[in-house]
């Protein structure tokens, strides 16, 4: 209870690695164009999607509190994505073990994937084991579809989420 109250400012690490300019950041990837709704008319049109593509979708999500992307903060990485047959597991690493924004970060990852991927994918999102003091609670909440559905009907939360999902440095950047 306490932990969540005094964690307004999670530690921010420098990204040692120079940012790879992906096609997504550089321009307009189909995946984040919100007009684009993949039509899944039949199983035969299934396109293979790999971990790198998933990473491209989520790397640019902004941290809710800092003007950095999840990639820059090393919250997400390609290695932390696991693809199965119509199943994706995304692991992320909160910046500090008591990060109170973890559920929001996880939710933004889920929403980005929900909006971008064909419906056949079942997505599980969890924090890196041992990286958060409320690991189980965060994982449970992020994978409860009813909680997620209700969250996405909360306009204040959605507004915050949309900010995280805007391209960093874009015209609507903070």
């Amino acid at each position, binding site marked *: *209870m*306490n932990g*969540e*109250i*005094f*964690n*307004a*400012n*999670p*530690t*921010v*690490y*420098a*990204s040692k690695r*120079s*940012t790879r300019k992906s096609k997504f*950041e550089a321009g307009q990837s189909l995946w984040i164009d919100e007009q684009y709704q993949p039509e899944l008319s039949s199983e035969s049109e299934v396109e293979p999607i790999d971990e790198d593509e998933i990473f491209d979708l989520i790397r640019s999500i902004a941290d*809710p*509190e*800092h*003007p*950095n*992307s999840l990639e*820059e903060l090393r919250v997400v990485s390609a290695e932390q994505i696991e693809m199965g047959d119509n199943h994706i597991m995304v692991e992320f690493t909160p910046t500090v073990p008591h990060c*109170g*924004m973890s*559920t*929001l970060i996880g*939710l933004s990852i889920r929403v980005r994937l929900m909006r971008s991927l064909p419906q056949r994918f079942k997505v599980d999102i969890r924090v890196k084991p041992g990286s958060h003091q409320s690991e189980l609670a965060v994982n449970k*909440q992020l994978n409860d579809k009813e*909680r*997620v559905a*209700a*969250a996405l009907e*909360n306009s*204040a*939360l*959605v*507004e*915050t*989420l949309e900010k995280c999902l805007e391209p*960093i*440095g874009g015209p609507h*950047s*903070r």
Partner: protein
Amino acid sequence: MAFSGALTLTDLNDFLTPSQACIKPVEQVNEPQQIIEPGAATTEIVIDSSGSYYEVSATGASTNASSKGTERKLQQAQISLNDCLACSGCITSAESVLITLQSHTEVLNFLNSNPPVSTPGHNIPVLSIAPQSLASLAASLSSSSGSPVSLRRILRRVRAFSTRILGFEHVYDTTFARHIALLEHTQEFFERKRGNGKVPMLASACPGWICYAEKAHSEMLPFIARTKSPQQVMGTLVKSWFGNRWGVQPDQIYHVSVMPCYDKKLEASRQDFYNDLYSTRDVDCVITTGELELMMRDKGWDLSQPVENEGIPDFDAEIPELLSHPGTSSGSYLHSLINSITASHSSPVDLTVKSIRTSDYEEFTLRARDTGEVLFKGAKCYGFRNLQNVVRKVGREAGVQVGRGAAGRLVGMRAKKRGGEDEKGYDYVEVMACPGGCVNGGGQLKPIAQAAGQKEDEEGFTRNWQESDVQMPVPGEDNEMQGAKWGNKEWTKEVERVYWHDLPTPPPSPRPDLESPFDRADRLAVQVKIDLCHPTDGSLHESWASVMDEGAETRRRELFRTQYRAVESEVVGLAVKW
């Protein structure tokens, strides 16, 4: 910041569910940074030796170490009780974090740092204790010692402890303040009946109910009496009336109250009870019965030990003590109205009481004996569940929209056809948030578990329980499923019994030269009114209800009434708990 020792989450059995949605912690919004250069804008948070947080631009620091502009002190998240009142995140106060701001440690810290008497900066420490708190202490002591102890003896012992050990200079109970509150409350009721305000009037003494109404049922606010609670009337008495008598300013008094309820801490923190002129509150700090008991234990004070003259009523006390207002143990608000209407009606009246399911919801109807006309219909309604029904009933009868949800917006919501309802609506409801009322407040002492387990108590304790038709649950037996619930209930009944134990309060050897405590209270109340409101025709007023000149009436309202406001806090996206 450590929690007060007396407080753990399990102690917080305020009966409104605590919410997880405190908006305060993340309200601090980071200033937008000027330049956003992907990959370059990296910051670190460092904590210096004093525990302050700084945000440091890592790249800036390395290239230009002397630049101070890259260091920015971050605010620490702080929550005041006032913030809680302004936030709808929680429906009630039961947030342990907040209570540290008003705790017995605060009291001890203050008393320790208070300069000695007659040195500059000395504040007069005053303690006021609620009769329900005395009852809780008495019940606990009675059950552990096996012999009943009266509220008067408890008050004397608490006074001895507070003055000798803690250094308080004055210790009062709050029943005289309640007496004034009841007078003012009755006056307000008749004002409303005359058309000056809404009816039914709803009680205003329970801060849990007030908080809930402000946050969830703002449509109820016009119905809630504006009369201050006894705690806040006591605040006015201590800081203004006694202050004048003692020749000190309000900020030269430190006023602590002992209450059966955590939400009283919130009440004392309301901005309405803050004196801007002297930068002081009417009640500086509120502690619960449990916290007082803990202080006594910490200081090694044995409440079971008698003190001198503890059984003898003090007729010369500055204010009348332990006035027992007949009716309910939660302040007798309803009964004071019933008594007042009965007294003012020219012909005999009959009172009928109808219990709705439990004693926590009772309807009282007053009829003229000759005509059968209903003169007054009121109810006492305790506990969250009954409170819901009162809100629905009052909302329906008064035709106001209930709730904060999608009320009325539902498609085709049928207009209620209730024209044929010939039943008279309520004139008054004594609303309390806790089941059982204030004797069962969240800050009261808990039943002694061992006592419950011992079937053959050598001190005859068990026999007493059974005689009074009380069954204590036995932990560990198969009725454990009911333990938590019934244990509390039976204990509440016991505190209730002790509350009324040595009452009414006639002097043990009636002295003809003494007026009755209530007559004295009435007389003194008028004196308080005159002293504080300064009517131009001061000497002419003989009753509380007599109307003064406009200026004095305005002062009276300022002093003895308060106001409520609907809380619609802005929702911060970052802080939404989902």
